[in-house]
C-alpha cells in the first residue's frame, strides 16, 4: 500500500469528484488535496462489496470484528441445527415409508425428549445472547471519543459537519456536502444508455456505480470518532458496513454511533431506510487517512491559505464546495 506523498496530481477523491474536476473550483481543490500527498491505492478491494460475495464483511473496527464472530457463531449454530433437524426428517422420510412396508407406531409423547428439546435451545440461545449483550454494550459506549462529526441526512444527500477533534471544537472547517457522484448520476437515469459497469474509480479500478460521492467524509485512522446522526426531512439511515457503525437518521432526534478505524482506506455504505425516490442514490463514502495526513488535510481545510502554500498553487478559492442540498 503506497501511503507516501504523491504530488503527481492524482485525485484521491472518488470517481465522482474526478468528473467534477472539470469545474474550475473543483480542479483546484482536487489537485491541492492530492498535492498534500494522500493518495490511497488499492484499499478498496477488501472493504467494499464484490461480485458473488456471500458473507458479511469482517470490517475494520474492533466492533465489526466482534459482530462478525457473533454472526459466524450464529450461522454455524443454525447450520448445525439445520443438519440435525432436516437430517432427522430425511432419515424418517427414507426409512419409514409406507411403500417399504413401514408400520406406524402409535406413541405420541415422550416427556424426556420434549424437555430436552425445550431446554437445549434455551441454553444455545443464552449462549448466543450473552456475548451479543456484551457487544451491544460496547456499541453503546461512545465515551472518550476524540472526534465528533455530525451527520445529517437529506433527500438525497449527506451533510457532514466536524464538531470537535482532539478535545477542541472545530469551527472553521466547511461543511461537506456528499451527494452521488456525477458519473453514477448520469448512468442511473432511465434509458441513459450508459452502462453501470462503465462507472469506475480510476484510482483503484473499483466499480463504484452508486457507491461514489462528490466529496467523501474524511476521518483520521486510529481515532475514536463519534458520529451524531440526524436527518432534516424524512428518516434516513447512516451505515458503513465495515465500521459496523449504523444508526437511523431521524428528524428531530440525535442518534450516535462510533467507530475507531485503524486501517486507512476508502469505505463505502448506503442509506438503509427508505427515504423516497432516490433512496438508492445517497451512498456514504468515508475516507480514512493516517493521522498525520488527516491533520494536514484538516489544517488545509481550516486555512485555505496554507492549502495554497502546500499545493504551491497561486490562488485557491475557499472551499464552499459541493452542491446545495436539494430540499424538497
Amino acid at each position: 500500500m503506497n501511503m507516501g506523498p504523491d504530488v503527481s496530481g492524482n485525485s484521491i477523491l472518488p470517481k465522482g469528484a474526478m468528473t467534477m474536476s472539470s469545474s474550475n473550483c473543483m480542479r483546484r481543490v482536487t489537485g491541492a488535496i492530492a498535492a498534500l500527498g494522500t493518495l490511497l491505492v488499492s484499499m478498496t478491494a477488501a472493504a467494499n462489496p464484490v461480485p458473488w460475495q456471500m458473507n458479511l464483511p469482517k470490517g475494520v473496527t474492533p466492533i465489526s470484528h466482534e459482530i462478525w464472530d457473533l454472526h459466524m457463531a450464529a450461522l454455524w449454530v443454525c447450520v448445525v441445527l439445520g443438519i440435525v433437524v432436516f437430517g432427522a426428517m430425511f432419515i424418517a422420510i427414507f426409512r419409514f415409508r409406507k411403500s417399504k412396508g413401514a408400520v406406524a407406531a402409535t406413541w405420541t409423547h415422550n416427556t424426556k425428549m420434549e424437555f430436552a428439546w425445550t431446554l437445549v435451545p434455551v441454553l444455545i440461545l443464552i449462549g448466543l445472547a450473552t456475548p451479543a449483550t456484551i457487544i451491544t454494550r460496547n456499541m453503546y459506549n461512545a465515551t472518550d471519543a476524540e472526534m465528533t462529526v455530525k451527520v445529517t441526512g437529506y433527500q438525497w444527500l449527506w451533510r457532514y459537519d466536524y464538531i470537535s477533534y482532539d478535545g477542541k471544537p472545530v469551527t472553521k472547517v466547511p461543511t461537506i456536502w456528499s451527494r452521488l457522484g456525477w458519473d453514477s448520476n448520469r448512468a442511473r437515469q432511465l434509458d441513459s444508455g450508459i452502462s453501470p459497469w462503465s462507472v469506475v474509480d480510476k484510482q483503484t479500478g473499483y466499480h463504484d456505480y452508486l457507491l461514489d460521492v462528490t466529496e467523501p467524509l474524511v476521518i483520521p485512522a486510529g481515532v475514536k470518532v463519534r458520529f451524531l446522526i440526524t436527518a432534516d426531512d424524512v428518516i434516513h439511515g447512516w451505515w458503513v458496513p465495515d465500521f459496523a457503525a449504523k444508526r437511523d437518521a431521524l428528524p428531530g432526534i440525535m442518534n450516535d454511533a462510533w467507530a475507531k478505524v485503524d486501517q486507512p482506506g476508502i469505505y463505502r455504505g448506503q442509506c438503509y431506510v427508505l427515504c423516497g425516490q432516490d433512496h438508492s442514490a445517497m451512498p456514504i463514502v468515508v475516507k480514512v487517512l493516517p493521522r498525520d495526513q488527516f491533520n494536514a488535510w484538516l489544517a488545509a481545510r481550516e486555512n485555505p491559505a496554507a492549502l495554497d502554500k502546500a499545493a504551491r498553487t497561486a490562488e485557491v478559492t475557499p472551499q464552499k464546495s459541493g452542491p446545495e442540498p436539494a430540499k424538497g
Partner: protein
Amino acid sequence: MSSTAQAVHYEEHHQSWFERWFMSTNHKDIGTLYLSFSFLMLFVGGSMAMLIRAELFEPGMQLMQPYFFNELTSMHGLVMIFGVIMPSFVGLANWMIPMQVGAPDMALPRLNNLSFWILPFAFILLLSTFFMPGGAPAAGWTMYPPLVLQGGEAIAFMIFAIHLMGISSILGSINIIATILNMRAPGVDLLKMPMFCWSWLITSFLVIAVMPVLAGAVTMMLFDRFFGTNFFNAAAGGDSVMYQHVFWFFGHPEVYIMILPAFGIISEIVPTFARKPLFGYKAMVYAIACIAFLSFIVWAHHMFTVGMPLGGEVFFMFSTMLIAVPTGVKIFNWVTTMWKGSLSFEVPMLWAIGFIVLFSIGGFSGVMMALVPADFQYYGTYFIVAHFHYVLVGGALFSIIGAVYYWLPKWSGNMYSSFWGKLHFWSSVISVNVLFFPQQFLGFAGMPRRIPDYNVAFADWNMVSSIGGFWFGATQLVFVGVVIHCVFFSKQKATSRVWEHAYGLEWTLPSPAPHHSFTVPPVIDDSQLAHGDVTH
C-alpha cells in the same frame, strides 16, 4: 341458531346465481369467495413482484422511474399481506372450522357475508391509487412517516382501505371465535379439536387485539396529513419513532397472524400422511398460545437501530430469542410425528415437508436477526427480505397451497391430477430457493432493501434471484390449471375420507361436502377424531 336455520332453509331452495355468490350466508360459499379473492390477489401482487424482479434483473434503470418502483414494492407488500395471506386463511377457516367442530355453519352467517364483501371494496380503494395524481403510496408497507406524508392524496385511500381490511378481519375473527366456542358438537371438547381450529382460535384473539392498533396508527397519520395535527412531525414536537412503536406493536403479532394458521394446517397434514397421531398435541396447543403471548413483547426487534436505550435493546433481544423456543418445539414435534410413521408422499404432504424446511430456514435467519449487534449489520438489507419471504412464501403460502391440495377433493368432490400437483410442488420448491436464497448473500454483502438500482457487485446474485422469481411466478400458473381442472373437469370422484389415514369430522361427510355441513350434531366417536385421545 334459529336465524341460521332459517338461512339454511332459504338458501337450499331458492337461490339464483346472483343470490348464491353475492348474498350468500353459507360458510362454504363465503369460504370459496375468500379463497377466489385471495387467488386473484395473488396474481395481482405477483405481477407487481414480476415487475420488481424485472427491474432488478440488472443494475441500471431499465423499465421504470424509481418512484414507481417504490409504489410497486409498497403495494406488493400490502396486497400480499392483507389481500392474499390473511383472506386465504380466513377462507380456509370458513370452509373447515364448521366441518371440523361438527356445526352446520359459522355462528354469525350474515356477519360472515359482510366481512367478506368489505374486502373487494377495500382493494378497489387501494389499487385505484395507482391511477391517481401523485401515484400510489410509496413509503413501503410499513408506511413510516414522515416519508409517507409526502405522498399525494392517495394516502387517504390507502388509510381507508386499511381501515376496511381491519374491520373485515376483526369481524371474521369474531365469527371464528363465536363458532369455535359455541358451535362445537357435543363431545368435541376444546382439547379434542383439530389443531387448525386451535390455531385459528388463538389467531383470532391476536387479530382482535392488534388490528385496532394499526387503525390508530394510520388514523394519526391521516390527521397529520390532512387535518394539521403533528403526532409524527418532529418540527412541531411530534415523534416519528412513536409511529414505529405503534406500528410494530401491531406488526409483530401480525406476522404471527400470518403463520399460526399455517402451523395448524401442517399439524393436520403431517399426521395424515405419517399415519401416526400428532406428536405432543397438547404441547402444540401450548406452544401456539405461548407464541401468541410472546408476540406482544418483541415488537421493537424491528427497531434495533432506531436508537433505543441499551436496556430496551437487550430486553427485546431476549424476548425475541425466547419466541424461537416454542417455534422450535413445533418443528421438532412435526419431525417426531414422522418418525416411526408409515409415510407416503401425496401432494399435500410434499407441500407440508416443503413448509417445514423453508419455514425453518426463515426461523434460523430470524434467530440471527434477534441478536442485536448482528442485526445492526442486517437491518434494512436484503437479508431481512430473504427472512420474511422464507417465512411468508415458504411458510404461509406453502401451507395455504398445501391446504388447498389437502381439502380440495373434499370441497369439490373431485380428485385433482397428482402429477401436475407434484410438478407444481417441485418447480415451486426449487424456484423459491433460487429466488430467495441468494437474497441472503446480497443482504450480507450490504445491499439495502427497497432500492430499484444497485452497484454492479450485486449484479450476479440479483440476476439469479430474478430468474428464480420469474420461474416461481410462472409455476403458479400450473396451480390455476390444477384447481380449475379439478373443480370443473375432473372425472375422478373423491371418496369421503379422501386420504387413507385422514381423521377428523370433516372426513365423515361425503365429498363434496353437503351445503350445510352438519344439520344435526354428529355423534362423536373418539376414534373418528384426529385427537380423540386426550391423554396426549
